[in-house]
């Protein structure tokens, strides 16, 4: 279970970006690849813990699941794998390790509000 340290990394990255822009974060959008090695449910649970006593406390984590896609050398196009248990083209069956997507672990965007407005509320 390494999701707590991943969650702390997300909070740290989002806090830095927010401070640089002088904004308050209400939600973090994360792109999570099926090959990232991170379990979504454990991450969502850890996120709440990681946010405690930080400027992100009370913010939401919105996870976009990214399936694994590979480039098929025979079909000459990117194909989404049906399962991570089978690295073969779902159309023609050729095995391939040319992974194009699915390793993402990326803070993609932040939902923010201006700090000043926050104070005035």
């Amino acid at each position, binding site marked *: 279970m390494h999701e707590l340290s991943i969650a702390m990394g997300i909070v740290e990255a989002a806090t830095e970006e927010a401070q640089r822009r002088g904004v308050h974060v209400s939600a973090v959008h994360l792109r999570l690849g099926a090959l*990232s090695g991170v379990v979504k449910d454990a991450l969502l649970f850890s996120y709440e813990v990681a946010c405690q006593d930080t400027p992100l406390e009370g913010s939401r984590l919105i996870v976009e699941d990214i399936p694994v896609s590979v480039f098929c050398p025979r079909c000459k196009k990117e194909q989404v794998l049906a399962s*991570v248990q089978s690295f073969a083209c779902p159309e023609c069956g050729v*095995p*391939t390790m040319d992974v194009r997507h699915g390793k993402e672990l990326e803070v993609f965007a932040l*939902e*923010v509000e201006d700090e000043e407005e926050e104070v005035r509320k």
Partner: protein
Amino acid sequence: MSEPRLVEVRRNVLKQNDVIARALREQFRAAGVFVVSLVSSPGSGKTTFLEKTLTLLQPEYRVAALVGDLATENDAVRLARSKAPVKQITTGTLCHLEAAMVQNALQEWKLQDLDFLFIENVGNLVCPSSYDLGENLRLVLMSVTEGEDKPLKYPTIFNSADVAVITKNELATAVEFDWDAARKSIESVRPGMQIFRLSAKTGEGMDRYLEFLAQRLAENRSVAQT
């Protein structure tokens, strides 16, 4: 009240680890040392396998090992019997090694005095997969007692590895290990991966694997020089 708005940031969460891993990889290249990391589940025989590897490589090569362990120093003590320099990284409750831990542990070592450096990760087939340690080769180890479908249960780590070793072959008959089924599961999650079947205990099959390491070291050095 201000309208919430969306700003794109695109930040890799593991960037800090990746930056350190890249620096390590460059350091290894400059020193001419070939670095192998080992991942496996607990109890698959990683320490026995590594002890044998260190012992058999030593007449010809200068070797050393870093060992990640949750709480004890037992593995480091066992590996020290090989007479190779061994250093323990106690991770406490952390379930994996990170690049910064490797960097810290290597501070007192002169890498240019080494041919091979082995990094034994914490026994875990989930968490270590996300962390690049700057290694040249990631070796995933499984034993014949674990079941042929282990790669299908842990596809991420098998997919992230460069080579697979199936050990404890001396027990294969007793546990009715199905070699073809195991090979098929590995091939399914990591097409084209080279597989070595061996027994670290009896030494059977170790020579082919050691030749492979020697070849990779030579290739790595010829690339580094050009």
